[in-house]
């Protein structure tokens, strides 16, 4: 039972992170290897605001999310747009270029964080009294983080499924070649999708900072987990990403409580391997 509750809480954060990444890859067609660095950056900013300005993490998230959107917007305009134009609609070329460019970006952001915040493990204590959930004592900060992820994630799912704006985003994800035929500005929508992805990454990062210890070197692990969840759920599949995120959270908590916390990444990779061999189109994806 403990595993179940803690796993679901962790899975909520993972699901949100994967959601952002699947938006970036599904809509903007950019494989962002620096994704985890944005997550960490948001986490550090939250800690910084909390420790130096005494700002409540809940308030800080309200500031961090739009900042993440803005950062993603700028990044797409300044860095990704030229690559998209250079690729002349060849997806393979854009894929290689964006992987390389964001790989470089990963080291820039990591370097900046190491200089600004150091290489030490960082954490804050905020609302860490236990709350009883189905007989399991869970820290309040975890529950709040879970609620934030749930609200942000489900809110986005509803927006994508029900609104006209969501329809446009889905149209670009499904067929970027035909979207202009019905009057959609693909460049603008890609930029929105990319920025939205960064905003989700920063919300995810900020909620991680509320309950977990982290260091400037953890970005790769966050990116890796988000990527694996996206593949498990099927690329561009929002509901799949949510479900796979919870699944990964559960498996990880199970492995770290029953075996060893040092083996969680190995468990993640084992799942990844199994998915690749058994269902490369994703657990919830359809065979194309």
């Amino acid at each position, binding site marked *: 039972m403990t595993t179940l509750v803690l796993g679901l809480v962790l899975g909520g954060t993972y699901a949100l992170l994967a959601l952002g990444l699947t938006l970036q890859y599904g809509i903007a067609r950019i494989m962002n290897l620096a994704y985890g660095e944005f997550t960490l950056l948001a986490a550090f900013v939250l800690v910084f605001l909390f420790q130096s300005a005494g700002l409540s993490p809940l308030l800080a998230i309200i500031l961090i999310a739009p900042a993440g959107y803005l950062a993603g917007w700028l990044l797409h305009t300044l860095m990704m747009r030229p690559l998209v134009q250079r690729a002349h609609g060849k997806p393979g070329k854009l894929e290689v*270029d964006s992987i390389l460019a964001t790989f*470089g*970006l990963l*080291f820039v952001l990591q*370097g900046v964080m190491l200089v600004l915040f150091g290489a030490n493990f960082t954490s804050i204590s905020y609302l860490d009294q236990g709350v009883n959930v189905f007989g399991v004592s869970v820290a309040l900060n975890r529950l709040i983080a879970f609620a934030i992820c749930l609200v942000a994630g489900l809110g986005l799912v509803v927006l994508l499924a029900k609104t006209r704006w969501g329809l446009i985003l889905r149209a670009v994800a499904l067929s970027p070649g035909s979207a202009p035929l019905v009057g959609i500005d693909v460049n603008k929508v890609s930029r929105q999708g990319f920025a939205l992805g960064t905003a989700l990454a920063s919300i995810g990062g900020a909620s991680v900072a509320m309950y977990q210890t982290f260091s400037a070197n953890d970005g790769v*692990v966050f*990116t890796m987990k988000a990527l694996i969840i996206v593949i498990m759920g099927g690329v561009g599949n929002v509901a799949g990403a949510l479900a796979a995120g919870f699944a990964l959270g559960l498996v990880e908590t199970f492995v770290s409580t029953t075996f060893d916390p040092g*083996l969680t*990444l190995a468990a993640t990779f084992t799942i990844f391997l199994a998915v690749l*061999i058994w269902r490369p189109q994703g657990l919830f994806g359809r065979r194309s």
Partner: protein
Amino acid sequence: MIRLAIPVLGLIILAGLPMFVSEYELGLMIGMATYVALASAWALFSGHTHYISLATVAFYGTGAYTVAVLNESLPYPAVILCAGLIGAAMALLVGLSTLRLSGIYFVIFTFGLAELVRQLITWYEVTITGTLGRYIFLDLTAQDIYWQMLALCAIAIGLTAWINRTRLGLALRAIGDDEIVAAHSGIHLARTKLIAFTISATLITLVGAVASPRWVYVEPLIVFNPTVSFLTVIMALLGGANRLWGPLVGAIPLFLLFEWLSVNFPDTYPIFLGLMFIGVVFVLPNGVLAGLDDLRAWLGRRGK
């Protein structure tokens, strides 16, 4: 004939250089040779196919760690052989599970592989053997390491040159141009990619094994440093990953720059390197050598 004579002559001169240089300069030359070998071996697979492998340090570190584990129980040549075999087995495992699918899965897998191997070794050492960190005591001088590394450079570049002339090289280029066309012209995609990736990864593992005695003390955090993967890719790209001499042209200046930066700006050099990397992707996507060719063609057109 002359195309063969110049590299052989160069190799002989390079092999003789340790007689005339200081200990510090020899260290620099070992570093340069290491990165020339790494970048050339990386480009052997990734250069033509455009399958970006981000796992250089996973293999490099595995090679180094194999030596650290086995150096007291086996003779040196057997240790090197073991390292090569382990590297090849790891490459086969990664390749078999990802290279049948689209390139993105390969990139993702290699992206996390170094971290995975590092965490697994750390976990194993802490919980099973109870120690973290090992010593390498081998009776090898810096010159021995230099010569071995030089030999690996020669093998990596020679093998690339040879593969470029064979059907395998042609198949790799076809896959890089258009995978669907390549499949329709009868190329066995997965097998071709797997062979090239295994050769490349085995060479990288050997580089790690040969370089390891320089450390003396080895622990997972030291040998699985992601900067190695990063430097290898940027070096190969700067010179031109699909050119035979491209990785060498990129590796030597970047290694010296890296040395200078890490001495003078120990805290901020990752930022400089990252910015340079982005710069290379934007300004010279096909490398310096291709850029020079373009410049020559442009000057030729202007001259007319």
